Structure formats: C-alpha cells, structure tokens
C-alpha cells in the first residue's frame, strides 16, 4: 500500500490572512512535509474559470512543487486531455519529468464541465474520441523518435516533414506512468485495455468503487493482463486526529460544506447511483465515505477498502478548505506515523508499457 496526498485544486480559502498567495505557501509546506515523512506522491487537479478551487495548469504548479521536494512523485488527477493540444501536454509532462528527475505520474481525463468545453470551443459530444486520440498522440510523442499521427481530431504534424519528433523525451522509460480518471464503464474498460490504472472520482461510494473495480478487473483479464500487476488507486477525504471527537470537530463542517458544493454540481450519488441534493447531505449519510477519526479508525477503513475494492494506493485529501494549515500538517504526520506504518510494504508494480 502506498499513500499520496491530494488531488488538490487551489481552493480559495479564508483560513489564512495572506489571501490566495497563502495557498502556494501552504501547498509547498505540505509538499515539503510529505516528502520528508514518506508520502509517495502529491496530486493536483485541473479546473478552469472557477472562483473557488481553480487550477488551470496542474503540471505548471507541480513544477513549483518539484523544486522544493526530492522524492515525492508528482501526479495529476487529472489533466483534461480534451482542452489542450496533446503535443503540448506531452511536452509539459516530459519537461516536468526532467525537472523532477523522473517523478511524474500523468493522470488523464476526458473533461466534464460544460463551461470548459464552451470556452475552449471544443465539442463536448466528441470528447470520448478526442480523449482516445490525444492519449495515442501523447504516448507516441513521448516514445517515438519519428512519428506522425492522423486522426479525426488531430493531425500531427499538420504538414509532412522528413523527420518529426517531439522533444525533450521524459526521463522515465518507456514513459511516465499514466492513470486514467474514469467514471463510466467504457472509459474504465478502455483504461484496462491500455494497461493503465484507473482512478475513480473522489465522490464515489465504497459500493460503487467495488462494482467498478469488478468491471476493471474483468476487462483487464479479458485483455490478458494480470490484475495484481496494476495499481488500484482510490481517492478519499482523510483526516486523522488524536480522538474521534477531535477529528470530527475539525473536519466535519468543512467536509460537509465541500460536499454540498459538489452536490450542487450534481456529482454526489448514493450507493444505488441516485443523485443527492445538497440538503440531503448530513454527516450520518456521508461519514462512511470519509476516513475521518483516530488512527485506529482510519486503519480499519483502509483495510475495508483494500478488501472490498482491491485498493492498493490511497490518495488522501486532507487539505479541505476550512481546515487550518496546522491541523492539516498534524493530520499528515499522524497518518504516516500511526496509520501508514501498519501498512508498510511495496505497492504493486505499475506497468507503464502502453498498448495505446
């Protein structure tokens, strides 16, 4: 089992007095601590045009994180492949891989928010095929010393050249690991065919994770791949305190507020897949999808996710807006010393060899 921190967006927050500038100071402080106490990775997400939680270029922010850390892997969950030219994404990820000496994990998604497609002038209805083509372009751009691509949405390069190669190449061979952010069965199965780990949305219930892990494993087996060789990441809200009461006192209100915003966007569902409205969200109803409490409680919940959903890699979101920085840092420390220490052992090897 390995543990990552995030995925975070750069949420506006009133908890510090330096305004938005404090976000980076806090993020870099968390990154330094995570690097020192043994978190495996730090993750950022991509969001556009939002007054809250906005990070339009996660790879660029991770470049700042790279300079203040040595071991931490740098992940995106996820970069939206449909909004930028895939060659630009391949270039940025390769440069970050060099800057960080091979620490990049590129999580990719097809995009969701209609507002983003509208502003970028991209046909949302075509996002699935754009996503598939973009993935193919990126893997080829990273690995080929001469390549061209001609699809429905992209032609690279637009005119023919005797030799065309995207440079520089990433440090990791054959290329940085790719994780596929997925919600629907098609994308989950595609991730399995590609041989890339699939990462579910933070808002999925344990029941949904279990069901979808089943789809993924079946598709892996059908593609002739060994399920045990592929990472099975899960994103959860995590907060560790000395006592249940303390953990809940710090984290419950900020988490509920955060999830009510998700619910307004229509992405919070119950186990049966029914959408939950913001007024339906109570701690009793949501609490079982959060890992909040004493170290013993969190440990127990992690083992449950491991058993039920085959989780091998936990992405811990501890930086919920409204939780003070000192409490986040304390929770990170408690998590590594009192929870993760009981779950030592290498995670499965993550194959990076693509068959895109």
């Amino acid at each position, binding site marked *: 089992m390995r543990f990552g921190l995030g995925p975070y967006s750069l949420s506006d927050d009133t908890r510090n007095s330096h305004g938005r500038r404090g976000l980076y100071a806090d993020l870099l402080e968390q990154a330094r601590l995570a690097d020192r106490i043994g978190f495996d990775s730090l993750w950022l997400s991509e969001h556009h045009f939002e*007054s809250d939680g906005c990070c339009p270029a996660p790879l660029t922010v991770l470049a*700042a994180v790279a300079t203040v850390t040595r071991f931490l892997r740098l992940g995106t969950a996820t970069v939206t492949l449909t909004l930028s030219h895939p060659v630009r994404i391949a270039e940025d990820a390769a440069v970050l891989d060099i800057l960080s000496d091979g620490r990049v994990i590129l999580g990719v998604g097809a995009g969701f928010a209609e507002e983003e497609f509208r502003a970028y002038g991209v046909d949302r209805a075509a996002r699935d095929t754009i996503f598939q083509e973009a993935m193919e372009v990126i893997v080829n751009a990273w690995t080929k010393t001469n390549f061209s691509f001609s699809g429905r949405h992209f032609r690279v390069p637009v005119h023919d050249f005797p030799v065309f190669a995207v440079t520089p190449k990433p440090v990791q061979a054959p290329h940085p690991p790719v994780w596929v952010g997925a919600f629907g069965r098609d994308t989950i199965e595609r991730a399995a065919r590609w041989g890339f780990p699939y990462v579910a949305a933070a808002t999925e219930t344990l029941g949904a994770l279990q069901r979808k892990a089943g789809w993924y494993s079946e598709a892996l087996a059908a593609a002739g791949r060994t399920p045990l060789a592929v990472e099975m990441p899960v994103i959860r809200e995590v907060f560790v305190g000395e006592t249940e009461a303390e953990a809940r006192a710090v984290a419950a209100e900020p988490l509920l507020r955060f999830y009510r915003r998700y619910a307004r966007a229509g992405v919070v569902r119950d186990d049966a897949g029914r959408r939950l409205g913001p007024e339906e969200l109570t701690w009793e109803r949501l609490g079982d999808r959060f890992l909040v409490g004493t170290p013993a409680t969190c440990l127990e919940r992690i083992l449950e996710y491991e058993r039920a959903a085959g989780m091998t890699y936990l992405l811990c979101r501890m930086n919920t807006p409204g939780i003070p920085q000192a409490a986040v840092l304390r929770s990170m420390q408690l998590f590594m010393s009192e929870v993760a220490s009981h779950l030592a052992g290498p995670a499965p090897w993550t194959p990076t060899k693509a068959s895109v």
Partner: protein
Amino acid sequence: MKFGAGVWGMQSTWRYPQRPTALYREAIEEAQLAESLGYHSVWTTEHHFWYDGYCPSLLLVSAALAAATRTIKVGTGSFLLPQHNPLRVAEEVALVDEISNGRFIFGVAQGYRPEEFAGLGQDIRTRGKRSEEQMRILIKAWTEDPFSFTGKYYSYDRVSVRPRPVQRPHPEMWLSSTAEATTKRAARMGVPVYLSPAETVERVRTFYTPLYREAALAHGNEPGRVYLTKDINIARSEAEAQREGEEPLMKMYVEQLGGWRFVTDEHGEPIEDVNHPRYQDIRKSFIQGTPQRCIDKVAAFADAGVEYLVCRFHAPGKTHAYVMDMMRLFADTVMPHFA
C-alpha cells in the same frame, strides 16, 4: 540600465551532450546565483521539436524558477505566442504570476520554424495577425472579468480567467522585434520592444530607438523602453573569453543557423565552416572580452538608447562553472558602472 541573466534553452547538443536533468538543475542554480548577485531578472527561451531537447514549456519552467527564488523577476524570452492557445496562455500566465507573487515578465515573439507551427496544429501564415489578436485577448482576459472578444481568429463569450494575475493592470509584457512593424506595435501598445542578439549599436541608435520613441510618443506611451539581449563572453583575459565562450557559442550558432537553414551556401546547404564570412557578423555581435571591453560595449548600447540588457551567459557548451564565474565577474565589474 537594468540587467537580466540567462538565457536557458536547456539544450543537449551532439557536440556538448548533457543529461537533461543536470541542465535544468544547473539553470535553477544559476538563477539563484543571479538573484544573490543583484540581477533584475532571469530568462528562458522556447523552441519545439529540435533534436537537442530545446525547452518547449517556458511557463512550466518559469513556475519552477519562481519557486526556487524569492525576489528576482522571472521572464520568458521569448514565448512563441502564435504557436499556443490564447485562452490557455491567459490562464497559465496568471497562474505563474500568482506562483511568483507578481514577479513574472511575459516576453513574447512570433516564432518562425514551420515544423513548430505544424506540430502544434497552428497556421504559420497567419502568425502575425493572430499574435496581434492574441495580445489583445490576453490583456482583456487579465483586466476584464468576465471578458468577451470577437475576432477574426478567436472569439470568447463571457469567460472568467482564474486565478487573476497579481500584477495590475496585468503581467508585464515585452514584445520581441526584428522589424519596423513589430517595433511600432510594441510602442503603440506601450510595452517594451525586445531586440535580438544580432543587433548592432549603430542599428539600435539610428533605427530602433528613434522609431520606438516616435511611435510611443504618438500614442502617449513611455518613449524609451528599448530592451536588448546579447551573448556575453566575459573573462579576465581575451584568450579565456575566446576559449570558454566564443568557441562553443560559434559552434552553437553554426549548428543552429545551418540546421534551421538560415545561413546557407549557394546550393541551399548549411555552411559548416565557423570561419566563413557569413558568420563574421555573429562573432562581432557578442559582448566579449575583459571587463573593460565589456563595459565599453555596454556603454555604447546604453548611449544608443538601450535601457535593459538581458545577458546571455548560458549557451550549449559553456560550462556551468564558467557561466557562474561570468555572472559573478559581470556583476562585480560591469554592472556597478550602470547603477
């Protein structure tokens, strides 16, 4: 006069191969040294799809340089604007401005290599017109919230760029120019004109400075913002400057200008002889030699109207040790004369 330092393209050439990770690490060390020596800014340079790994991701690298420094400005010299999506650029520049807490300088140019436009799905023929439209979009996106724009190439309807840039009214911009039209455009927009390393004292004094001045005054803008970048080979002796600086630099120019077919013989083939007359102007364009010679050359450009000099200390083949040494020597001996 203000001084910048750089200019990192992160190239690992066949003559001077280097591990890419080392190139980026050394650039960060050099930027940190520049900050401690009192340079005003540090700079990166962009190209795409060249075999030596020339850096394609200046905004990402600027974020790294900003995180590794505290006070020095971080600039792109130059970002090839019409090869990119302007909305994406508006967002990412704002982000870098935020990460650097308002220390970002967005220097832009048009670019010229057909491969780069073709590889990024952009039309090279419309680059001039598009880049003009893009600059208008950027300024709107940074100063109006939400912004709308209807142009020939790009249109946006009520888009709110987040985060908002730190600098007001918007991040500082420089416009690269090698021609009359772009120089006038910079003056008209009220942004500095950024001249290339090939320019001579004579050309700056008689052409760019008066041209920019006149156009800027006509639009009520500051008339003196003529900025320049130059290759620097400073050393304690002429011989050292030649050996450590000029020699690798000439090889770089011959390879690049030949490889990109800018300097060709009568058959259209690259000229590989470093001593060919076609390369003599380039050799003469360097600010090179002992501190006194460098002071004289910089003073001549200052007299010609240059207010800001971005020193190209780094180039493929100049060792990290020599670059660090040059940066110290230049800061100790040349910069005090222009304080």
